[in-house]
């Protein structure tokens, strides 16, 4: 039987607000007060530094970022420096990996696989590069992975560049890889791509890769609906 995973679309959410929500849901999931769920959203412009981030990989100076309303966050996820902003699809699965009998390596692979399949649904052929987590089109990054796991319950997740403002990526060295720029589905296709459409395709891919039955719920029901 396919495991049920609840899915809530949150729309555009400031980074700090989404982080607080994830921490609350992570705590509830650890206590088994809620079942597995995935949040899908876009962030307001923000630069985040993972646990192994080199602050020199933020290229723009703090005053310039502040003037543009771009926040900077130190986070607990794995990885280096990442930009998030409108037009980028973010998925935050809060799932207990023990229930899926899966380890850390598979989980990172699975998040990449979700993005590869979502890209393929648009006819975009992206690939993995050994030693560089995420998905790539040529030498340019299309999607990023950054995960945090405590008591086998996950937080953070993936970010797929659907149709973001390319300027955001000029403020950082993406994931600490010099000379590797960022690209997006819209840039590869040469046409706009809607975030809601990409969201649907990504969650379809999530269901396939995880062998899950994805059930959409309204955001106001997050944390109150239990999975049977």
């Amino acid at each position, binding site marked *: 039987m396919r495991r049920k995973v609840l899915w809530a679309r949150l729309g555009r959410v400031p980074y700090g607000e989404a982080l607080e929500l994830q921490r609350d849901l992570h705590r509830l999931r650890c206590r088994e007060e809620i079942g597995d769920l995935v949040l899908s959203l876009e962030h307001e412009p923000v630069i985040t530094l993972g646990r192994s981030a080199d602050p020199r990989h933020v290229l723009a100076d703090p005053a310039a970022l502040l003037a543009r309303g771009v926040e900077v966050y130190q986070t607990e996820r794995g990885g280096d420096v990442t930009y998030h902003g409108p037009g980028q699809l973010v998925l935050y699965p809060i799932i207990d990996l023990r229930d899926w009998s899966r380890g850390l390596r598979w989980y990172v692979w699975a998040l990449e696989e979700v993005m590869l399949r979502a890209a393929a649904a648009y006819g975009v052929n992206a690939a993995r590069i050994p030693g560089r987590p995420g998905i790539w089109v040529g030498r340019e990054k299309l999607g990023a992975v950054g995960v945090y*796991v405590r008591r086998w319950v996950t937080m953070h997740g993936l970010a797929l560049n659907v149709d973001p403002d390319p300027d955001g990526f000029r403020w950082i060295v993406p994931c600490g890889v010099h000379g590797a720029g960022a690209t997006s589905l819209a840039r590869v296709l040469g046409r706009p791509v809607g975030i809601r459409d990409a969201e649907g395709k990504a969650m379809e891919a999530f269901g396939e890769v995880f062998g899950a039955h994805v059930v959409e719920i309204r955001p106001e029901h997050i944390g109150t609906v239990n999975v049977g």
Partner: protein
Amino acid sequence: MADIVVPPLGGVEEVRVVRWLREVGDEVHAGEAVAEVEAEKATFVIEAPVGGRLYAILVPEGKTAAPGDVIGKIEEASG
């Protein structure tokens, strides 16, 4: 004395200790997060197996370890 061990992580052969959340001598509670290790863009939290005092850090921040390795020791609380 209780060992703080990197658990089997499923296919991961090596992790890097990115952060110790407690210092040697600090009191720790069972189940409290004491260290974070990273592999393949994933941070994994290591919790104290027992309550007591952090007695030794065997693998410092920035160094690597393998699942099964003892990265620290806890002197168990008496009584």
